[in-house]
């Protein structure tokens, strides 16, 4: 890889102390994001995707959380050892964050304009008036009607979808290079989801912002991603451009995911029951040795249960963490 990537997470391990011991939520994750790219991280809930995302901006509570190992290099600088002050200069200024729950992510006692202006004034030192104008601009940018007036409204005067637009406006307010969106559409109903995803793509085109999208919906992945990373039980099991991932999924777990998507086109003709992946996610308290998907993998061999499969690059940009990836047919 020539120029240093925008964001390079290498060997990241994040563990949480609970009454029953250390939960190894993220156990050695490598993810890279290039400028202007939309990377999707997909996986079941509890696979560590949200923890990874939040750890980038250190938004997780430490304690009980703790970064055990690994580095998060942002434009050549490692964020992990950074002090609070250094981290603050990056939050929203360089990396924006969109949360999952728009209903509760805005402070009910301040107007939306004030909340956006707060970030702008913090990072760009604008006067109160200029910051409010910027906030109004951002609101109109995210297609909120008569933004100049609504900038003075309170969060409870907006619908769920509108509030997510405000969150997006807030995240983009300082023209960041990367936006991390943690399941931005999960709390919204389907029609609004599409609008939000279109809006984010539009923003990407206009501002050239890279997007790291965390989701568990393969549909969202197909719709927006350029590259995809599949995570399972705290580890990355497959990474590939979106096309090859859907066409030729190498890892049995990815294959299972893709097969379990209800196919509208086939539903009318084949009447097949939906396929589900048997078994449940292993406990992250004391994860089994070897491949963590072994217990649920149809192709699991003895070796899978003993040696941990490394992430191997089978084709350009297409990596898989499975001993027998080559031999498994699509």
């Amino acid at each position, binding site marked *: 890889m020539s120029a240093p990537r925008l964001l390079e997470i290498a060997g990241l391990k994040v563990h949480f102390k609970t*009454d029953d011991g250390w939960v190894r939520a993220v156990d050695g994750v490598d993810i890279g994001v290039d400028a202007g790219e939309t990377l999707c991280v997909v996986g*079941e*809930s509890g696979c560590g995707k949200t923890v990874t995302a939040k750890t980038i901006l250190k938004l997780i509570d430490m304690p009980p959380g703790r970064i055990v190992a690994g580095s998060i290099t942002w434009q050549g600088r490692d964020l992990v050892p950074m002090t609070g002050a250094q981290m603050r200069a990056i939050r929203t200024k360089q990396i924006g964050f969109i949360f999952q729950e728009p209903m509760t992510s805005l402070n009910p006692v301040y107007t939306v304009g004030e909340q956006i202006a707060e970030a702008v004034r913090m990072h760009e030192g604008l006067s109160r008036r200029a910051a409010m104008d910027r906030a109004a601009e951002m609101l109109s940018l995210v297609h909120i009607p008569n933004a100049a007036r609504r900038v003075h409204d309170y969060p409870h005067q907006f619908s769920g979808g509108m509030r997510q637009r405000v969150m997006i406006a807030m995240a983009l307010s300082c023209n960041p290079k990367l936006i991390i969106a943690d399941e931005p559409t*999960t709390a919204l109903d*389907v029609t609004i*989801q*599409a609008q939000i995803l279109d809006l984010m793509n539009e923003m990407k085109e206009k501002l050239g912002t890279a997007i790291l999208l965390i989701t*568990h*919906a*393969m*549909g*969202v992945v*197909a*719709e927006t991603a350029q590259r995809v990373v599949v995570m399972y039980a705290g580890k990355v099991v497959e990474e590939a451009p979106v096309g090859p991932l859907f066409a030729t999924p190498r890892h049995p777990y990815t294959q299972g*995911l893709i097969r*379990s*998507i*209800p196919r509208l086109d086939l539903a009318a003709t084949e009447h097949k029951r939906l396929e*589900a*992946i*048997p*078994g*449940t*996610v292993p*406990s992250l308290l004391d994860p089994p040795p070897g491949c963590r998907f072994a217990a649920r993998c149809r192709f699991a061999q003895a070796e899978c249960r003993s040696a941990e499969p490394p992430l191997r690059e089978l084709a350009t940009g297409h990596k898989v963490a499975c001993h027998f990836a080559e031999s498994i047919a699509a």
Partner: protein
Amino acid sequence: MAGSIPASATASPAAASRPRVGPWKEAWRRFRKHRLAVVSAVVLAMLVLAVLIGPLVWRVPIDEIDFTARLAGPSWEHPLGTDDLGQDLLARMLYGGRISLAVGVTAMFVAVGLGVLIGSIAGMAGGKLDAALMWVTDLFLSLPQLPVLLLIIYLFRDSLKDVVGPEMGVFILIVTVIGLFNWMPVARLVRAQFFSLREKEFVEAARALGASRIRLVVRHILPNALGPVIVAATIDVAAAIIAESTLSFLGLGFPPDIPTWGRLLFDAKDNLDFAPHWALFPGLAIFLAVVTINFVGDGLRDALDPRRVQ
């Protein structure tokens, strides 16, 4: 867009790694973690035990006047010393403690009972009834406790005395009055809980399932309102014990020969600088009872309030 991945539909038997933990076991586990609450629970238990068993073990009569042993400090013969009539303080503390604690707990039940009743009615009914009940609450908030107490004692003491005897008669009177003046905060609390819980989805869901109003209140809303009510209850016990001692401060409480902790403290306050033991022990007893009850309350609230995060 496309369907999202359901968490695996079939839960296999191996999944339940942890033993099925009932809500009460869970509550006990969390309560155990609140160290001070556990310590307090033990101390409280010892206090209650001492007060109940004590008089059987320590057989010195409570009103044995012995002028030779006046205002004696703690000694083997009188572990907690004596008062100005030479009466043994340990015996009086044990006997009086039984009444003080009983007053505290019973008054709390009266207050909490009334409070929950009025609070839930106001909470559920709303509208006119709610306004009327809140007016009654305001009324009691502004009524001075003493004249009402004077009136009630004066009106009912003789009739009660014939029925249940002087000591029990006054006990019922005092508990009723203290209870009558401490239910308002609980009522307000429960009403506020009801207003917020009423809109919650799980209540509407229960209503959708055809739950009757009473069932809704008892099964669904009340348990959730339990946390703050318990805390209020513990504060009420403390307030009741202190109120009883304030009443003896004014000579309105129990007859003079019933040595409740409040009465002992009131009698001892003039000799504080010469016979500090006489005032310190009842004062400490009241403090110990009140602080342990409060800690236990705090522990209970943490244990029973699901939203409470470690």
